[in-house]
């Protein structure tokens, strides 16, 4: 997994067998563009995620947009370095935290004597509105983590039985 200095001769995404991992593209245009665009796309994704209550948007939409930022970076700077930058445990923690946040809000309503996800029993100002917003954030975390996780899992490929990993 960590051995991203590839072994395969047909390794097209990371050139060089012995050298440290470096971006696979020669074109500086893609890298410069991604460097400029990525923060804006991330901001857009966060805006769409947090502003879902008052305009078009929400957890699913914003989460996918935030996830694509990582995919952009991975495509421009190489999948191996990006995989090391975003550690596996961080990604796992994020996705699990999202699910627990969603379920936890539902259970909090149970604690205050309501039904599952019945926000209005929680004694907070505008509980329903903020409950929905928090749930949307939870969805966004799940979706963005999942999109990134699916990408990296598919990029890593099937683990061969003889132990050589098809690392690309």
């Amino acid at each position: 997994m960590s051995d991203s200095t590839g072994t395969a001769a047909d390794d097209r995404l990371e050139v060089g067998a012995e050298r440290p991992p470096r971006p696979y593209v020669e074109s500086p245009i893609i890298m410069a563009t991604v460097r400029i665009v990525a923060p804006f796309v991330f901001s857009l994704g966060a805006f769409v995620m947090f502003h879902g209550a008052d305009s078009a948007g929400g957890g699913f939409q914003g989460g996918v947009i935030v996830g694509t930022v990582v995919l952009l970076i991975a495509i421009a700077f190489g999948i191996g370095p990006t995989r090391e930058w975003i550690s596996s445990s961080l990604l796992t923690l994020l996705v699990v935290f999202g699910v627990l946040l969603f379920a936890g809000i539902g259970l909090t309503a149970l604690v205050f004597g309501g039904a599952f996800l019945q926000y209005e029993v929680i004694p907070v100002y505008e509980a329903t509105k903020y409950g929905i917003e928090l749930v949307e954030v939870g969805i966004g975390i799940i979706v963005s983590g999942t999109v990134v996780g699916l990408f990296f899992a598919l990029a890593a490929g099937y683990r061969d039985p003889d132990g050589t990993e098809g690392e690309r």
Partner: protein
Amino acid sequence: MIAALADRAYFVAAFLLLGVGAYMLIGDRNLVKKVIGMNVFQSGIFLFLVASAFVTGASAPLLTEPAPYVSPLPHVLILTAIVVGVSLTAVALGLIVRIYEEYGTLRADLVEEVGDGE
């Protein structure tokens, strides 16, 4: 007849997309193209549902806009279905990667032959 078709153009388009998707699922031998066909089929269903929610001259279901609104319920269903769809596509592609490792081909007919030979 023509006027009736023009009034229901989105439904006609949805049916044609279902046809194209079904053709790719059944007729194409390449497994990746079968998955793409599945995606086309699925968006045909989405088009049918979203088109049925549309009302001419209505605004999007943002309550700050002036009434009337289109129905928000199909939008909610499609929204989640798209994200679930991409997850399932990823699982299907994972299966394809695995099939390629095992059989060395992506052609459905050759996979069957290799499977029979064993």
